[in-house]
């Protein structure tokens, strides 16, 4: 359990549909050159990026193995390869019903299940792929790759136990790298000493406190000068919702409008969490904060959260995305796009950042809170790029769980009345409707 195994990963945007992988596989497995004999398949759709893949993921908990009544399928605990013992297969095809990736099929002649076995660990298809669309990775590979990147924050910063922002900022700076100037305005990240305390610094890159109000402006000034002298240096903002959606909004808005080349990460913990949990404009309706308290007359915040990421879409940004630490791969992919986009203009990522301290839930529930926020559509994960000209859900939620399943995980919502919950559910439904309208069919 918990071991990371190899699997073949596909990057659809790199695939040109040449079929080399399928031919190579067919040759190796069947001695033919007929792509339909291959253990993987790539179908081309009408649009350039539309591709239909059929390929085994060598799942960690393979459903095909679990449903096989014949004991013919097994996952090697060492290599992770899911393989078929053809002599034991009776051809019942229950495995094909269990696999959502079309990764296993019945051999038309032998009437036995056949599937990719990674060629024992050195897959022919990957070697044959000239565009780099196919690669052999472990699920853990990604994490290991991230882990191998240098953590450019020092250890021992005084984040709260289970802080989501720490997770995000450390990962972010790892990926963005050392040729970077980091701005972290007053807020949790700065408050834990990200810029340093009393003469000691907390990062291995240049870092500074902008004002709560001018993060994007200051970065814009730095970037413009580096551009002027012909040096490519990345500008990274790690700001909270106060410095972004509230007093910092004008400078952000102006910088986005002017297309300043900045990666702006907003860590939205829905309030001023480092100074005693006061309300911000991204605090959701009904939430308790120290300035929207719960009493006889008032029951938490009376207004809905400002939908900042959507606002940023309409702001001349090159790239806008929402993210959540419960979906780190999703975040990393967005981060990579943001890095690219920031070479042309502003890349804005709005990271949902649950706060165990200020929201009142156990640190151990952090990821669960994130998952349920996404599963309930409280926090839809999407991205927009100016090039793509359309908004795209990266973790579509077709059957959202009721928002109360999310709300009741968190202390700041404990007092909510039925009417308040309904209001939040209505708001969530309405915002999803608006977002969907921005998706180009």
């Amino acid at each position, binding site marked *: 359990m918990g071991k990371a195994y190899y699997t073949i990963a596909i990057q659809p945007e790199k695939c040109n549909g040449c079929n080399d992988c399928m031919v190579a596989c067919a040759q190796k497995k069947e001695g033919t050159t007929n792509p339909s004999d291959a253990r993987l398949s790539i179908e081309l759709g009408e649009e350039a990026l539309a591709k239909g893949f059929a390929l085994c993921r060598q799942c960690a908990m393979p459903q095909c193995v679990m*449903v096989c009544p014949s004991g013919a399928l097994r996952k090697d605990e060492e290599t992770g390869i899911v393989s078929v013992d053809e002599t034991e297969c009776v051809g019942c095809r229950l495995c094909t019903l269990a696999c959502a990736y079309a990764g296993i099929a019945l051999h038309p002649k032998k009437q036995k299940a056949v599937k990719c076995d990674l060629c024992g660990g050195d897959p022919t298809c990957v070697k044959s792929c000239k565009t780099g669309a196919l690669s052999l990775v472990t699920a853990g590979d990604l994490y290991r790759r991230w882990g191998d990147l240098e953590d450019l924050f020092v250890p021992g910063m005084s984040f709260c136990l289970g802080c989501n922002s720490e997770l995000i900022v450390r990962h972010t700076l790892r990926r963005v790298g050392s040729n970077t100037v980091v701005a972290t305005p007053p807020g949790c990240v700065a408050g834990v000493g990200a810029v340093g305390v009393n003469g000691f610094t907390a990062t291995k890159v240049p870092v500074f406190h902008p004002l709560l109000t001018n993060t994007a402006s200051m970065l814009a000034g730095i970037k413009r000068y580096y551009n002027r002298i012909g040096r490519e240096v990345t500008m990274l903002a790690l700001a909270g919702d106060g410095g972004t959606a509230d007093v910092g909004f004008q400078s952000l808005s102006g910088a986005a409008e002017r297309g300043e080349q900045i990666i702006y990460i907003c860590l939205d913990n829905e309030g001023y969490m480092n100074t005693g949990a006061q309300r911000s404009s991204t605090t959701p309706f009904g939430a308790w904060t120290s300035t929207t308290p719960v009493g006889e007359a008032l029951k938490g915040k009376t207004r809905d959260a400002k939908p900042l990421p959507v606002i940023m879409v309409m702001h001349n940004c090159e790239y806008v995305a929402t993210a959540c630490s419960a979906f780190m791969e999703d975040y990393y992919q967005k981060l990579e796009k943001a890095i690219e986009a920031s070479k042309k203009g502003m890349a804005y990522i709005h990271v949902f950042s649950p706060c165990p301290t200020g929201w009142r839930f156990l640190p151990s529930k952090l990821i669960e809170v994130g998952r349920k926020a996404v599963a309930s559509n409280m926090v839809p994960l999407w991205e927009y790029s100016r090039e793509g000209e359309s908004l795209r859900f990266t973790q579509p939620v077709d059957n959202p769980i009721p928002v109360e399943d999310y709300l009741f995980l968190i202390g700041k919502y404990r007092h909510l009345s039925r009417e308040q919950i309904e209001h939040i559910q209505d708001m969530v439904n309405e915002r999803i409707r608006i977002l969907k309208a921005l998706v180009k069919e």
Partner: protein
Amino acid sequence: MINTKYLLIGSGHAALSAIDGIRMQDENGPILMTGAEGRSPYSPTILPYVIAGRKDPSKTQLKDEAFFKTRKVIFMEKDPVKVLNSVMSRAYLESGKEVSYEKVLVATGAVPQVPSIPGLDDCPYEVLRTMEDALKIREKAKKAQSAIIVGAGLIGMHLAEALSSLGLKVTVVEALPHVLGTYFDEVSSQMIRQSFEERGVKILTGCLISKAASGDGVCALSLQNGIDLSANMLIIATGVRPRTDILDEYVKKDKGILVDNFMKTNVPNIWAAGDVVQCKDFFEDRMVLNGILPNAVQQGIIAGRSMANDNNVKPFRGSIAMNTFSFFGNKALSIGQVNGSDNNSDLKEDIILSSSSVRYQKILYKEDIIRGVISINTQLDPGVFLRLIIDQISVHEQKNLLGASSLKAGRLIMSARWR
């Protein structure tokens, strides 16, 4: 007395999946699994293949010793639970041992349902649920020339093919108007039937049995429509019922053990999964029996994770009827709601039918969402379609392509949703 944290009663797919479910969250909590037959775990689904000689009965084991060892599971192969005392959290085994558990999963599966037919009790009939049953039928079939199978469900039809392939003259008697009526519509059912009949299997549908008799190595059935049948073997394959007899009265049951979407019974530390449960239906608000292998696996995982306090476990989506069925080299598939005509008049059908060969496909939609699929010998990925149904993915744009080129369309839609 044996103490354990997790007791798993049964050794089928549900119980085995529960092991992995528990171990996702709890790496070391003691697990005890009890089997009834003194065999390595196997699947009843494989039994027709054993009878047909296509599967070596000694090679049916689903999991080897290493599986239990790496997962730290104690498997007592032949210690069936006799009674479960839900109040004391104790299981009393037939061997006389007592097991004290913190949490228990009841995955006792099902037992054959035998209809009451006058005279049947005196006949040497067979049922097929255990390996012993299979071996017995296989032995008998070696000496027999003919067999009557009562019930044209999956087991009955599987058996009919198996026995027919062994050279027996097979007659199938079914009370309902069609074979495999649960899974296939009239057209596809007729195609399957025709295929059987072409190979000499006699199929009598819409026939009720009035009495049974035996003597001289021959079993005889009288049907209500006046037909008399006789054969060397009589096999009853009229379905199964959940095996709930070990439970006391505190555990709520209807036809099966009633469970919620996390496979929990009304008793806080008792879970149930697999063929023994009665659970939510996927499409409709009702509690249904659930004798379907992939559902049992799903339930087992959910039950295991729930037992180990995994807060992120997603609830069971509800039982969906589904099966793959192979007959004489043909491939049939059924998922979800397949009959639009009955009480589901809002379903729309998209049908491809080939008259020249055995080829048929029907996709049922409710608006833009797929509700069911029947396929006989057409190309599609069953698992992809199952996922499209479960996730209720709107396929408005791709409807035409889904009907005409199901394999490609399904893969395109699914791939677009992966990351």
